[in-house]
């Protein structure tokens, strides 16, 4: 999923006829003070970071004066939320709210349909409301092919006790939100609170939006604003991780290479979404500590494997290399061999001292065998299991 930063999601909402507070994006406290004065006090100052539940972390504050705006902006800019340092702020005019509602649209993966969760209590954690006041929450499943009608939105809010103007306003907003959910291939679209303000209008006070990675390419206007796969990291990318992204993107249609740094010392070059989970678990169970997590596959070029291996081996403190994959359907093992050997040799790694184990059965393995033999690297195909290979590297490291 690509998480959409709140300024971008609010722009999209506005383009689709949904009201939001007026806002500015700033990067320092002086700017915050300037735009706050332009908006008029009171203002809301929020950390602009693609993580949820910012309110709980103290990264959403209200300012009544220029001095306060500057002071609070500075304070939030010094924070780190879930490992993400706050680099930008969203400064908005504070709404005069008369009623706070909650709505989210996402998928129910067991029912395999979109689901709307709405509540007449907004501005707080929905899990909390669902637990303490279940009668104030409605869960509504939508037929993906039939779509969602205005009357259904009306039934939801009416069921939650909304009347008159609030009912009309909330109905209009929910219906528009569902159209957006479809139009942008969203995986989540949450408005909390959905505010009814003093003049009676519905305003999306805070928005959380995620777009399906597999549909992002359909929205060229969003491609620069939404970070693809941003749910695959829980902190900003490290330099080595960025290097691997570059390696992967240099040839995006020939195989995949994903790399995440971890704390251990075993260089981890394992293939496939499933196989990598198995080998990572196995190493931990045997008392080993992987220096990174990786997935690679889909028949990558030797250049891509070379780039990935080089990144894995250049991480300080890496003491070994384990290449361990399932029997491949289409990945050419000889190309993988070529990439690995090139990286090992270029980094002047002495294979007699630095433990390396490769288990990589699949297409062209006879050639792979030759490449590894020539480089003096231990190579296995289906003479051992994936778990056996993990055990081998641990034993080799013990010496």
């Amino acid at each position: 999923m690509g998480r959409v930063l709140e300024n971008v999601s609010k722009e999209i909402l506005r383009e689709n006829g949904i009201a939001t507070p007026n806002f500015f994006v700033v990067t320092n406290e002086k700017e915050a003070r300037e735009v706050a004065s332009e908006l008029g006090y009171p203002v809301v100052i929020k950390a602009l970071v693609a993580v949820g539940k910012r309110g709980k972390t103290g990264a959403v504050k209200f300012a009544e004066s220029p001095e306060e705006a500057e002071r609070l902006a500075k304070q939030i800019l010094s924070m780190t939320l879930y490992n993400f340092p706050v680099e930008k702020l969203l400064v908005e005019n504070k709404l005069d709210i008369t009623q706070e509602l909650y709505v989210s649209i996402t998928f129910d993966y067991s029912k395999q349909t979109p689901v709307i969760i709405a509540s007449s209590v907004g501005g707080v954690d929905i899990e909390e409301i669902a637990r303490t006041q279940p009668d104030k929450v409605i869960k509504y499943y939508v037929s993906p092919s039939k779509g969602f009608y205005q009357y259904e939105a009306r039934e939801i809010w009416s069921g939650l006790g909304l009347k008159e103007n609030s009912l009309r306003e909330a109905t209009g907003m929910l219906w528009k939100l569902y159209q957006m959910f479809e139009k942008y291939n969203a995986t989540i679209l949450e408005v909390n609170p959905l505010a009814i303000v003093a003049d009676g209008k519905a305003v999306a006070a805070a928005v959380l939006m995620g777009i399906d990675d597999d549909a992002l390419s359909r929205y060229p206007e969003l491609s620069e604003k939404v970070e693809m796969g941003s749910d695959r990291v829980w902190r900003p990318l490290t330099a080595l991780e960025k290097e691997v992204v570059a390696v992967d993107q240099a040839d995006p249609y020939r195989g995949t290479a994903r790399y995440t740094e971890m704390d251990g010392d075993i260089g981890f070059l394992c293939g496939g979404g499933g196989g990598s989970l198995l080998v990572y678990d196995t190493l931990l169970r045997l008392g080993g500590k992987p220096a990174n997590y990786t997935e690679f596959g889909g028949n990558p070029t030797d250049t891509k494997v070379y780039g990935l291996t080089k990144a894995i081996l250049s991480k300080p403190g890496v003491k070994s290399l384990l290449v361990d994959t399932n029997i491949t359907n289409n990945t050419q093992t000889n190309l993988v061999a070529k990439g690995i050997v090139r990286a090992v040799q270029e980094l002047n790694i002495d294979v007699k001292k630095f433990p390396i184990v490769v288990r990589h059965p699949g297409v062209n393995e006879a050639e792979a065998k030759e490449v590894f033999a020539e480089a003096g690297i231990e190579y296995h195909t289906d003479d051992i299991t994936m778990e056996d290979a993990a055990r081998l590297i641990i034993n080799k490291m013990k010496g």
Partner: protein
Amino acid sequence: MAILVTGESRIAIQGITGREASMVTKHCLAYGTKILAGVTPGKEGQDVEGIPVYDTLKQACQRHNINTSVVFVPPALAYDAVMEAIGNGIKLIVIITERIPRHAVAKFLEAAKEVECTIIGPNSVGILSPTEKIKLGPIGGDKVERCFVPGEVGVISRSGGMTAECSWMVKRAGSGVSTTVSIGGDPLIGTPPKDILTRFENDPQTKACVMWVEPGTTYEDDVADLIKSGGFTKCLIAYVAGRFIEDMPEGTVFGHAASIIERGTGKPSTKIMRLRDAGVHVAENFNDIITILQKVM
């Protein structure tokens, strides 16, 4: 006997002229699978490995009485291809295509349910039955016998790559597979494990099943419920991968898109507990699949 595929399967490949699809067609034919037709709009009159290509699936159905389709069509066109298969009365659709947006998937899954059409995938490597010599999709590559020998064990895998590896573990245990099904690694798939197990329950050839499990989804809760209600009575061996994800920040994706622990659901430890509670043999180590199988078979 096998599940999903039989001697009655009349198979077409949608998107047959693509690079991947034509290679896979060649491998399927070499294995002995009978493929009757291919579809690629605008390429009627051509052939792929001797298989006639049609502009529409309708023509292929009229000529060859197709009841099974394998979809290789690229993601942007896959929704239409699957709807075409449903619209032409196909009863089994295996979707190999990866990266189909989930809004589109939700729509065709709903349409398929209404007409009792079975969808395997998306993002599946296919189905293989060594007894019937049927291979639908890339599963097994060009060296099928390396991993797949006929036998009495049904295999279910969320991971495409591990589909062959699990079947190979069965072979290493001295057994073989009745049918292996790659259900697909996406968060929305046509046929979850419980439905596959129900079919294995009704298949006389299958005596036991092996299941590859990953974090995310509530599939295993459903499997546990199925077993407890008596809907699956054969021996089930499961391996649950990705236990380390529980120690990572919640919501982070490792592996397949469906492998996500959110709001406390989909944890490997919970899955292991629920499965064990239902009497499933949950292998502590992956290698244990071999010893457990040798004991039960």
